[in-house]
Every structure is written in C-alpha cells, then in structure tokens.
C-alpha cells in the first residue's frame, strides 16, 4: 500500500458549463488511463478511487486486484482500507496474501499497477519511507513500502496518481522506496525488472509521461484552465515540457456523477457512525 498525502484538498474550478474540483479532474483522468486494462493492482486512496471510477465508466469489466488477496472485487462504495469486507464479498476469488504476491503479481498476471506516492522524482522513482527534515532533526516517518516495490517491478506498466506540489515532486528523493525508471533509460532492464514501469503520472494539474529516449517525466497534458507555468512552479525540478502540451478533456457529466456517487456511498465510516 502506498500512502497518499493527506491534507491537500482540491480547489473548486469552473470550466464551461460544469463545476468540478481539481481533485475530480485528477480522479477522472486517472480512471480514463485504465480504459484498456484487463487487470489492475490497486493501491488504496486515490488509485482505488480511480480504479473504481474506471469500472463505473470507461471499463466496466476491469478486474480490480487488492493486495489483501481479492481478485475481481466489485465494491459499490469506495473502500476505506484494502481489507474492507466488501472487497472480499464481491470478489471472483480470494487468495492468501503470499499467493497474491508470488503467483499473481510476480507471476506477471497483472497489466497495470496503480500507485500513489509521497515523493516522486523526475524518473518517477518513489519515496514512501522517510523524509529528511533537516540536519538537526530526526527523519520524518512515512508508512513504508507496502506492496509498491514489487508492484512497480512486476506489473505490465505502472500508473501513478498524486497531488502536484514541490513537496511531492522533488529534485532528489530522500529515500528510494520503489524504483520507477531509476537513473534513466536502460536501468529497469539492467535490473531485470519485467514490467515497463511508470507510463503516466496523473496529478491535479495535468499528466506527466516519461520521454521514450530519456525516461524523464515530461509534461504532456494540462487540465483545463491550468497553465504550464503553474505546473512548473509546483514541480521541484526543472520540468521538461512537451513541444505540444495537450489539454485534457473536462469530465463528462456522467463521469462526474459516477465519481460523486462513489464518494457519497463510500464516505468512510458512514454506516457505522
């Protein structure tokens, strides 16, 4: 499980006839990235929102796989944890956790790994372990690796979703928990990693994709009303920008309705409060 930084809330934006937040832009675009996948290994938090939204919109047949051992979960609400009961009850199969990691993940059965992150660098490497808080302070503690190192290594490809800020998009990771593209092209191959690695990082500002020749993340799309300068300012390294930067399609009314319905149903603790 990979943590998603809490505390940042989306700001409301207006585009055309539709009202949506920057978080919703991120979530909708993350879901769209799963349009062609058969199977997705789902991290909790934003990745789980995206994967469940994909099932409700662009990819109803998408097989959701959670590290708690569920294959083919079909939750009606957003799970709070990767072990919520509904994930097991609606699954095609529930397998022991070691089997999940050995036969299904390492076994190369999963198309897409969907991860969050606390820190990302320009090669889409991930830190979810510790942050340096200065020379006289102890390291700040993050949750740790969870499934991420082997998800990133063994899935066919990796998608990432996180909010865009200089705190998250950093020049240099304080700790490499999970390898994305290492130090550049060829590093994954040299390390014998079966999957293609990160192919897109979807944020509340736009979408970054690795350049095929350098493996460095490049800004390829911005969300409606987001400027390239704003993305640069929120990125902790000198961001490379594609020759032509596209603009993502605004959420459709159907996508927004589906997302809001999922979130309303999935209000954590709703039914137990």
């Amino acid at each position: 499980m990979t943590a998603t930084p809490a505390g940042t809330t989306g700001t409301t934006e207006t585009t055309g006839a539709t009202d949506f937040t920057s978080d919703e832009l991120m979530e909708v675009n993350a879901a769209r990235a799963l349009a062609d996948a058969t199977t997705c290994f789902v991290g909790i938090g934003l990745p789980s929102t995206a994967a469940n939204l994909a099932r409700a919109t662009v990819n109803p047949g998408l097989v959701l796989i959670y590290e708690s051992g569920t294959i083919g979960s079909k939750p009606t609400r957003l799970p709070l944890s990767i072990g919520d009961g509904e994930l097991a009850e609606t699954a095609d199969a529930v397998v022991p956790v070691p089997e999940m990691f050995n036969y299904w993940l390492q076994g190369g059965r999963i198309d897409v790994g969907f991860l969050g992150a606390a820190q990302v660098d320009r090669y889409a490497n991930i830190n979810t372990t510790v942050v340096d808080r200065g020379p006289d302070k102890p390291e700040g503690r993050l949750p740790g690796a969870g499934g991420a190192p082997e998800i990133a290594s063994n899935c066919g490809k990796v998608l990432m979703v996180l909010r865009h800020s200089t705190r998250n998009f950093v020049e240099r990771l304080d700790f490499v928990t999970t390898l994305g593209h290492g130090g550049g092209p060829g590093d994954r191959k040299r390390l014998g990693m079966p999957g293609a690695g990160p192919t897109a990082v979807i944020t509340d500002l736009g979408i970054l994709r690795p350049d095929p020749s350098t493996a460095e993340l490049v800004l390829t799309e911005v969300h409606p009303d987001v400027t390239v300068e704003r993305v640069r300012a929120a990125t902790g390294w000198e961001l490379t920008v594609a020759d032509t930067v596209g603009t993502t399609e605004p959420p459709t009314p159907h996508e927004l309705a589906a997302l809001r319905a999922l979130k309303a149903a999935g209000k954590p603790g709703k039914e137990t409060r």
Partner: protein
Amino acid sequence: MADIRSLQDAVADLVHDGDTVAMEGFTHLIPYAAAHEVIRQGITDLTLVRMTPDVIYDQLIGAGLVRKLVFSWGGNPGVGSLHRFRDAVENGWPRPLELDEHSHAGMANRYVAGASKLPFAVLRGYRGSDIPTRTDTVSTVVCPFTGEELAAVAALNPDVTVIHAQQADRAGNVQMWGLTGVQKEAALAADRVLVTVEEVVEELAPRPGGIVLPTWVIDAVSVVPGGAHPSYATGYSTRDNAFYQAWDPIARDREAFLKWIEENVRDNVRNSEGALTR
C-alpha cells in the same frame, strides 16, 4: 493440542517479556482483545511483527512495550499516520523503536519461509530500492540454473503468533474465513499459537474460503466475542471505520493517548472487552 482457556491465562502463559510476537490480520480479524490483555499484563520488550501494523500496534508501541517493529506498511488505513509509531521512531517516546523494514512481498515470503521451516525465501524483489541498505534480513542468492541474482529474505519465526478467528470446536480446531491474509503462515511459523475466537461451535462446517487450523498446531483458544473490534470478523461484525477515524486525534496527543489506554484498556472493569473475556 489447544486448550480452551481464559484470555488472561492464555496470554500470561504464552506471551513473555522479550518475545517476538506476530499479531496478524489484514484489516480483517485483527486480535485487538489479546493485544489489550498484553497491555494490561504489561508484557514488555517485545519485538512486534506484522505486514500492516495499524492501530493496535500503535497502542502497544505507545504503551511502551515494544523495542522493535518488523513490518512493511505502518499506517491507519485510509485515515493517515500512526502517531504513536511516528513519535517512537522520530522522538524515541516513550522509548526508541528499532525497525526492520521490508516490502509486503518480502514480508509475506519471510512468513512462508518460517512456516516451511526454511531459513530463507527467494523473490524477485527490492530491485533498485534503498530498503536493503537498512536491514540485514535482505540479501541475494544466485539461481544455480540461470545465473540470475534474486532477493533472499530471512525467515520469520515468531515466538508467539496471536490471531483472531470466527470459530473453534470443542477440541480446539479453528476455522476462519473471509480475508485470511498471512494468518496461516504466521501461525505455522511460530513456536506458540494463541487464537481468540468469536464462539465455540459443535462442529466446524466447511465454508467457502475457510481455512482450518487443526488443534494440534495451536496452544490455546480463548473465546472473546468481538475480540477483533474495531477490526471485524466476517459473519459476525463489520469494520468500525468510525473508530479508526476517531483514533487519529487520540493518538496525536501523548496525554490523550495515555488517558485512552488507562480508561479503555487498563481499567479492566470499565472495559467491556475485558468483561467478555472471562
């Protein structure tokens, strides 16, 4: 063979100062009541093992009973940080906490090796990660057939594994179902096994997804209805997500935390869970 006995006696007999203890459960079937009994008895200097230490380990750490944590993801799922865990790691309060940190795949395989009584397990993992620089329980082996270098992780063999299950029969055979995580591996890897159960039934009816642990691999079974709360037991209860969210402000504050433990765990009389365990 498992004896069916009170939680108090079972914990006193099976869990000792300085032990390596795994209280497993992947969100589901987490043995809260047993951990609270450990707190009440003040069993200390523990090395705790778990893939996903959550609120219950936060409580044990905050209570000052833990010297080392072996884990792969420590958080309050869907809510945020474990503040007692962070306070121990970052500030050494109430005592320093040593860490042995892995990935999930590595931890799962460490349990598999432990259950298989092998000294290590092999996986294609940790590649390009800094994790191996901070632990001495990740190494490498070379495949004698292909020459590929792979990760080796040291076996985990806890002194005691504590789990919660739905049912036992009178002979002490146990059945659990739903998400069963790594509980079988954690139990079979351990020297001693304590299982708390929702109830004792005349016969364990085979269930879809059911895992049976025979009585002869278990030392004690204690009947503790609701013993997984705020975690849950499929078929008996649902996850108390509200508790997990309410835990966050309690755990952020040392005093609030100590007061909560005093009132809800140590003060046996006011603790409904404790009452149920007798």
